């Protein structure tokens, strides 16, 4: 048996393969500016109607205007929605046979889903930056540090939740079924997370449900990055939950993908 695979070489070529697959994916997405524009309009609408609209009704949360308080939550909704949807787009590509060629390329198969994760994270990092630039309009002042920290936290969340989407795509082989499951899971995931209200103000049973939702930690991380000190859990805990989750998901993906 000729197993002459040098580990460092494999790591280097795998990284390159992931970047290539991500590059290809981004190029394909760039061919649909309409989709990106639609996403932008959707979030602008959300901020305008939800945040600004409720502002006058609710007022301030912990000394911060409501619209500013929910702003990171709204960005997180965008990040998680599009992140999980990456799995769906992967499943459709698979259904259309687009992945077959990549599956027989001489690179480890896990590079495929990881390439999709990388592409999605890059795209969502860019979207988060653009959205954060609008923060001052909602009375949210940014410092270079908070801007950077928030961008990093959204990018990390994008990676975690696109890994979740891809893991689901590995488990559920049919794109149609996956679509229904994703839609079903999306609402509890998005709204039982403290994205649009404060966890501490909810009844205990709801707070428990919220604490079981991984997105809660990603919203909390972003909020703490922007405001500091008003989170529902410690920042290290937020990070730990997200890191453990991404490790478990990657292992699951690796297991389902094979070599």
């Amino acid at each position, binding site marked *: *048996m*000729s197993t002459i695979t040098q580990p460092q070489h494999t790591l280097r070529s795998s990284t390159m393969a992931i970047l290539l697959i991500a590059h290809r994916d981004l190029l*394909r997405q760039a061919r649909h500016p309409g989709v990106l524009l639609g996403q932008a309009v959707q979030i602008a609408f959300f901020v305008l109607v939800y945040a600004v609209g409720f502002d006058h009704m609710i007022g301030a949360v912990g000394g911060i205007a409501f619209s500013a308080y929910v702003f990171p939550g709204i960005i997180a909704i965008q990040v998680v929605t599009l992140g999980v949807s990456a799995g769906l787009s992967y499943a459709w590509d698979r259904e259309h046979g687009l992945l*077959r060629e990549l599956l*027989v390329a*001489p690179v480890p198969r896990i590079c495929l889903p990881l390439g999709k994760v990388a592409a999605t994270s890059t795209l969502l990092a860019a979207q988060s930056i653009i959205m954060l630039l609008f923060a001052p309009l909602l009375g949210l002042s940014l410092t270079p540090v908070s801007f950077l920290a928030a961008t990093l936290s959204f990018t990390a969340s994008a990676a975690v939740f696109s890994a979740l989407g891809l893991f689901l795509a590995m488990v559920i082989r049919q794109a149609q079924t996956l679509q229904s499951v994703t839609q079903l899971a999306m609402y509890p995931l998005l709204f039982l997370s403290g994205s649009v209200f404060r966890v501490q103000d909810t009844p205990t049973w709801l707070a428990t449900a919220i604490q079981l939702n991984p997105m809660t930690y990603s919203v909390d991380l972003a909020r703490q990055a922007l405001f500091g000190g008003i989170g529902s859990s410690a920042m290290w805990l937020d990070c730990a939950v997200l890191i453990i989750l991404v490790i478990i998901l990657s292992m699951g993906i690796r297991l389902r993908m094979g070599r």
Partner: protein
Amino acid sequence: MVNAFEVTDLLVRYGTVTAVDHLSVSSPPGRITAVLGPNGAGKSSLLKALSTALRPAAGAVQVFGHNVTTDPLLARRQIGLLFQERVLDTELSVRQNLWFHARLFGLSRHRAQQRIDELLGLFELSQRRDQIVSELSGGLARRVEIARALLHKPRLLILDEPTTALDPEARHTVWNDLRRLRRELGMTVLYSTHYMDEAEFADEILIIHNGQVVHHGSPAQMKTRLNSSQLLLSTQDDEAALRRLIAAGFDVVMESGGLAIRCAEPEKQIALVVQVAVVPVLTVSVHHPSMADVYLATTAGSGQK
């Protein structure tokens, strides 16, 4: 010398369905092998197992000595693959499609560029390099796929029904390309097809049915064994013609529409037959064994159920 591919006792299952049933086949480098068989015979499964896309349930598959299960990455480097479905990225340009493939197969930037230029030239696609794939005709897209499969200089080219869904002209072009590749590069080729005329390009034909090899041999062997090419004739007096043809040693039978003469190369017999028949001939047509004829004849001959 190590075989280009070697399949030993291969078993492929989908749930409870057995697609490939303890099949063995091998090829030395440089040979062209055609796989024939009806839908569901296990052609695609065999090719998938060989191209590392599918994990065999049992048996061993080696490509230039690399086991596809234990050494998939090394095996994949040896293989150029053309799928039954179109798998180009239709939203990207011809060059981009080739570029990503070349880079994924480990070619350096410089080398990738060089190979792309070479292959675009070889396939007369240089003018199309920046065109989006969805704007190409089916035949041209197929050429791009063949070019792409060759970028990393594979030693074994695997083609799963390469001309399905192509118009006759495009089919013709594809086969011209493939024959040229064989001539100029001496590649080992394995392809599956539904068309008997396409099987003739092969050195070795493999007919599979129910996941097993029911016949293998060269096209010439196959033809002589079958001897089922026919010349169909209608004349002003079929009975008279029949008598004369039998007297001249032809294998003739009377059928509803006229006479059927079984012979190896019917085209070359037309003049002689018309001459021997003497009575005025109204129509002449040549019938070559179709995939179905060959398939039915071989399965009947091999005593299969």
